[in-house]
């Protein structure tokens, strides 16, 4: 039976805890720890994503479920995930497993002009599709009311249409769950850190049914410090302008401290402090800013207009970047020392804040809620 825990036979001692939908609700949803990655959605008739929330429509009485195992806020064994994805122990440092860090940008100015920073994600995802490395990409797209959701792209035009971020949490992996059972063979996913954790959980899952995660050939991770709750935030925005007019969001680098909303004709600047109350509580307990379990991770290059920071983590990631560079799809440049130092500092700060929040919730540094970390790792992050 698909949902039976195949406990025996695994060589590693490490394993993910296997529980069911009831525990997912009590441990994650009821505690407001859901990051809305979408990993629990699209596999059963019970859990659905609706306007920024995961909703259990009925009570599922199965004692074990993929929903619980895939969730990045249950029993997160970082060492197991690191072994599963990279074949090495969890680094427990600022940036996780790193082969190379550089600045990068798309060579195509058309891509760059529509993208958040240097267009590297759009360029690499399109390239991976062109090269047949993947045959489809799971991306995030927003509807006319800025409600984001996962979508499957199988051509570069579709990929380009998904460029940009609206900083609102999206259940993107619901699309992976939905599509991986269909007639696609090589899937790439552009994922936030919590989504990369969920995809790593799928790979490490002891359940027999792992959602055809073997079809997952490429994970492009996105740097992320927080994401917003859709419903409240959309209501907040709708008081300022019709949601349908919005074409793009941006957060310019510090010290601007503003959230920008673009329409075709105007720009509205909202103080970031007015936006922060809409951050999902689940982001407060997150310790992954740079998508540490992706093949490559991409984010802003602070202070360098039009460029991304690019972290190559896996061999697959390295091969993709090298091929894209060789074909002139992207160009790279060394990341300035100061930028790297800043990146590490910011990432460590996120880990520290997340851990402190976790300890504040549980009241003990022996109980890390959903995290499985050695005490040395905890000490390292907190010191």
């Amino acid at each position, binding site marked *: *039976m*698909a*949902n039976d825990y195949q406990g025996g036979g695994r060589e590693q001692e490490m394993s993910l805890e296997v529980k069911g939908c009831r525990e997912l609700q009590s441990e994650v949803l009821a505690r407001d720890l859901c990051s809305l990655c979408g990993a629990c959605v699209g*596999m*059963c*008739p*019970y859990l*659905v994503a*609706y*306007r920024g*929330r995961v*909703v*259990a*429509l*009925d*009570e*599922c*009485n*199965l004692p074990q*479920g*993929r929903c619980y195992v895939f969730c990045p806020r249950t029993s997160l064994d970082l060492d197991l995930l690191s072994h599963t994805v990279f074949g090495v122990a969890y680094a427990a440092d600022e940036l996780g497993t790193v082969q190379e860090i550089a600045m990068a940008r798309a060579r195509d100015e058309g891509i760059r002009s529509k993208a958040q920073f240097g267009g590297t994600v759009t360029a690499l995802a399109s390239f991976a599709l062109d090269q047949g490395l993947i045959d489809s990409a799971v991306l995030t797209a927003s509807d006319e009311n800025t409600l984001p959701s996962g979508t499957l792209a199988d051509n570069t035009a579709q990929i380009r249409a998904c460029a940009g971020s609206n900083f609102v949490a999206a259940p993107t992996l619901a699309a992976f769950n939905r599509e991986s059972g269909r007639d696609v063979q090589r899937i790439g996913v552009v994922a936030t850190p919590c989504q990369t954790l969920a995809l790593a959980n799928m790979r490490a899952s002891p359940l027999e*049914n792992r959602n055809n995660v073997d079809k997952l050939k490429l994970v492009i991770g996105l740097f992320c410090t927080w994401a917003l709750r859709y419903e409240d935030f959309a209501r907040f925005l709708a008081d300022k302008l019709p949601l349908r007019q919005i074409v793009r969001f941006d957060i310019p680098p510090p010290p601007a401290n503003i959230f920008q909303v673009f329409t075709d004709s105007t720009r509205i600047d909202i103080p970031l402090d007015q936006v922060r109350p809409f951050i999902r509580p689940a982001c407060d307990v997150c310790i992954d800013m740079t998508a540490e379990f992706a093949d490559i991770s991409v984010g802003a290059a602070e202070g360098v207009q039009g460029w991304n920071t690019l972290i190559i983590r896996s061999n697959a990631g390295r091969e993709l970047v090298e091929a894209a560079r060789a074909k002139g799809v992207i160009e790279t440049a060394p990341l300035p020392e100061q930028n790297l130092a800043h990146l590490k500092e910011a990432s460590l700060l996120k880990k520290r804040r997340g851990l402190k929040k976790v300890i504040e919730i549980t009241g003990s540094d022996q109980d890390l809620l959903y995290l499985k970390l050695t005490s040395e790792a905890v000490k390292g992050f907190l010191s």
Partner: protein
Amino acid sequence: MTSITAYEPGASQLLMGNEAIARGALEAGLGFACAYPGTPSSEIIGSLAEVAREMDIYVEWSVNEKVALEAAAAASFAGVRAIVAMKQNGLNVASDFLMTLNLTGTNAGLVLVLCDDPAALSSTNEQDSRLIAKWADLPLLEPATFQEAKDMTKWAFELSEEIKNVCLIRSVTRVSHARGDVRLGEPMPPSRAARFAPTTLGQFTPMFVPPKHSLLHQKLNKAREIFESSPFNWYTGPEKPELLIVTCGSGWYYSLEAVKTLGLESSVGILKLGTTWPLPEKLVQQHLARTDKVLVVEEVDPFLEGNLKELVGDTFSALGPLTFYGKRSGHLPSFGELDPDRVVGAVSSVLGRERVAVDPDYAKKAQALTGGLVQARMIGFCPGCPHRATLWSVKNALKLDGRGGFVTGDIGCYTMGLGPTGFFQLKTVQAMGSGTGLACGFGKLGKLGFSQPVLAVCGDSTFFHAAIPALINGVYNQSNFTLIILDNSATAMTGFQPHPGTGASALGEPAPKVDLEGLCGSLGVRVEVADPFDLQDTTHKLLDLIQDDGGVRVLISRRKCALVRAREEKAAYKVRVDSEKCLGESCGCARLCTRVFQCPGLVWDSDSQTARIDEVICSGCGVCADICPASAIIREVA
């Protein structure tokens, strides 16, 4: 069901209690009958409707009990004998009119039949409606047998005309719905000289109230005198019984059986009263004087018991010490339904004899006898019921909305929405239309911190009966809720009687059809119509209405009752489970169709470990095909 006029006068026929009541009315020369359907009263007007054309009398399904009583009173005022029947809850609706009608009095015989539902087998309460007799100072008859049900009804018209007031008859489920032999009389044609002609100023008004109130008491006293020699009261047993059972209605058969079971015919007497208000005091006193122990056996409240004690209190010096047993002493329950076993227990306990109880294994043995022939199934919606589909969408819409929205309900088949087959959606159930009234109140609590969406549900018949004033109240007072009218085009729970929205009269003739959309629309509210079998569209519309905060909104969820559909048309789909596609336990759906959706047409086959369709009862609605995540339920156009 054979028509109640199909039998020859003088013949002895097996009749349902309610048919006997209807036949009694025909034998009294009934001209006018009306009611709002309500279990266990519905067959009285139902069987009269069937013979209305043949007898050339007027029969209607009224919009509610108050209007029914008012219409029947008009017939009485105009010199035509009339009958009204209602269940106990219906009396509450009619009582506003009744509590003044008693003062104004009547002209031609007017009989009000109250059918109580002890144990609330098909009700939301088990109120004892006999108390209205005392409250309204009206005479009350309680038939104990099917013969009495007919004879008393016939005589009730005469009594009503004698005292010029309403005569009450109280039946219970086991009299109304059981069958027994009835010796029949001759049906009589009604008076065809209907004319409203008051003989005194203010005859049909309560003016002036105190003298009319006094007159009402005089009428009641007259009834008491008549009751002293009524053939509906009798005694069986020894001259000086060790224990006197005083009983009425269905309690009489139970008492008879108990005494026989215990072999106490020589020591226990039974005074059976058919005229329970006002009490025939002299008759009762005669019997009380011959014993010192009295057990009162009656359904629901200690009504007779209390009245007997009142009487003893008035005449204590004459009667001497008496010990009463019954509901007040705890020998019989004042809730739920009586049965012979309970009476055996009470008599045994009073006389200190060993109780002869029903075989403790009776239930087990009965179960063994029926074997696998009867599927164990809890009370719930029928296969293909549109309410299940509507409530599925309601459940999903409220879950998705996520603001703690809830459903206020009322009375109808959809009351079962409070249970598993309605996904526990109804959170309140009281009176007809009260879900909408409650919604009015909930929807005005915003000032007091309330922020949950409110959904009221009511059936189409209930809407006409009692929800319209609540809806208008909500509109006028700018409340905030969504009313879902579950329009299944029938008064389904009571037996598919037509109502103002069906386009048919009680006689099955064409009638003007009241337009729900037009009626609601005229109030200026947003009105949507959905087909509950389209789960996606219904959920979508519901979400849109729920989130369209402010004001009153109406969704008409329209699908004909599955049982009516089965009578009128052939099934829309042939439904089957593709056993290749149904993954059973390995699907991960945790048996959504049989465990959560719970249509009785879907069963879990423990042999194949898959779901399957019970073809015998599947109504072919095809809704389950839309909930199966594996698309294993196949619906093909039949």
